[in-house]
């Protein structure tokens, strides 16, 4: 079979067919290495493998059985005693460095992680997109840093949600707002650029304002365009911004400078 795979065009076509087997974890040996090299340069294959992996996961989940109740405590205890890996190379495009611990999980198939570094660039690109639309490309590096932090991780989940939509608006008095929202995740990423500076004792507070009242979402970082993550969106919610004392208020005390319907 290997001999048959030599020709260039045929090679690609044949390799492409492996996407299904690969997603089923049924490719090993030299085929695996060859397919992974192929994947690196074939975005369509990556998408296909990704889609198939979702299908496989459903095949797996459909087999669910009830674990013995005693296992739960064991598992929670074990977690309590186990150190976690810091956010690492997985989120950094173009980095081959890997933690020793991850290497253990790969012992059977060196070079293949639980998720090969297929679409790593995607998240970074999405975050940079937020930066770009908010007109804050100059802060690129800051965003890249935030990716390596846990909050960037959650944020990335929203940015890469398949149903993500972008909304923009202008604030009264200045400030261009960009919201990237996933209805499905009931979460959004809020970014604003060009906010007029406030006296030191004041700050901009972010709100979810809905039929059942206003929920504070934190103070916008002064002088920075760092995106903020807002989760737990409810039907009828609007995003609001008010000027409040520096430490924030429990309820808005001034007229909103932004009131942005989310059509939830």
């Amino acid at each position, binding site marked *: *079979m290997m001999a048959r795979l030599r020709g260039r065009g045929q090679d690609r076509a044949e390799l492409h067919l*492996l*996407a*299904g*087997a690969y997603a*089923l*974890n*049924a490719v*090993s040996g030299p085929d695996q290495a060859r397919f992974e090299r192929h994947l690196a340069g074939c975005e*369509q294959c990556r*998408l*296909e493998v*990704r*889609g*198939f*992996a*979702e*299908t*496989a*996961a*459903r*095949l*797996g*989940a*459909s*087999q*669910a*059985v*009830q*674990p013995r109740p005693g*296992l739960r405590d064991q*598992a929670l205890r*074990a*977690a309590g005693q*186990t*150190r*976690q*890996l810091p*956010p690492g*190379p*997985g*989120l950094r495009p173009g980095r081959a460095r890997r933690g020793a*611990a*991850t290497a253990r999980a790969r012992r*059977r198939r060196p070079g293949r992680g*639980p*998720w090969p570094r297929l*679409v*790593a660039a995607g*998240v970074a690109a*999405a975050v940079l997109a937020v930066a770009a639309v908010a007109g804050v490309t100059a802060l690129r590096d800051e965003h890249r840093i935030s990716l390596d932090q*846990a909050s960037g*991780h*959650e944020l*990335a*989940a929203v940015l890469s*949600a*398949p149903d993500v939509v972008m909304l923009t608006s202008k604030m009264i008095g200045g400030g261009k707002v960009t919201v990237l929202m996933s209805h*499905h*995740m009931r979460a959004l990423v809020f970014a604003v650029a060009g906010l007029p500076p406030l006296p030191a004792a004041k700050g901009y507070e972010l709100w979810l304002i809905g039929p059942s009242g206003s929920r504070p979402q934190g103070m916008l970082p002064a002088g920075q365009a760092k995106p903020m993550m807002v989760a737990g969106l409810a039907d009828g919610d609007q995003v609001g911004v008010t000027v409040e004392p520096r430490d924030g208020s429990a309820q808005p005390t001034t007229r909103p400078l932004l009131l942005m319907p989310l059509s939830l």
Partner: protein
Amino acid sequence: MTGSQQARWPGPAGGAGADPELALLVSRIARGDQRAYEQFYDRTAGAVLGLVLSVLRDLAQSEEVMQEVLLEAWRTASRYDPARGSALSWLMMLAHRRAVDRVRSEQRAAEREQRAASAQVDYDDVTEAVESALDRERVRRCLDSLTELQRESVTLAYYGGYSYSEVARLLGVPPGTVKTRMRDGLIRIRDCLGAE
């Protein structure tokens, strides 16, 4: 071959396998949130155990692997990248790899091939998870819609833990055929699950 180049890619949102809340739980776990881990365990342990059991066919070993997989998820939560797929598929991938590692290291290939045709897990000791009953039925219907060769190729690989060349030997067909049947089978299952 069906749907080769223009097939639609549902991505992580396609079907009930996509669970955005699960992704958020993973991101909380990545920050050491034990409450999130509890919820994550409650929602996924049954699926992990079921998949591992289908590959290993031994409850005690499967429980052990399930615990390893969930601990691995706790440990490596910060490395989960939502851009690469749903949290469920990440977890099931970990589970499948572990199960296959275990079965390939502990059993000789020949021995496995002997059992493959006949062996069924003794499910008397386990209870099907109630929540998955609907999904189980859907998946069964979708598997039933495949040709026999497609179905056997997919299930031997995924539920049986065999590589595609092993599947080819087991079924007595060329590896190239198995390869395409796996792909075609997955496309049909995907479309079938997506349509339900």
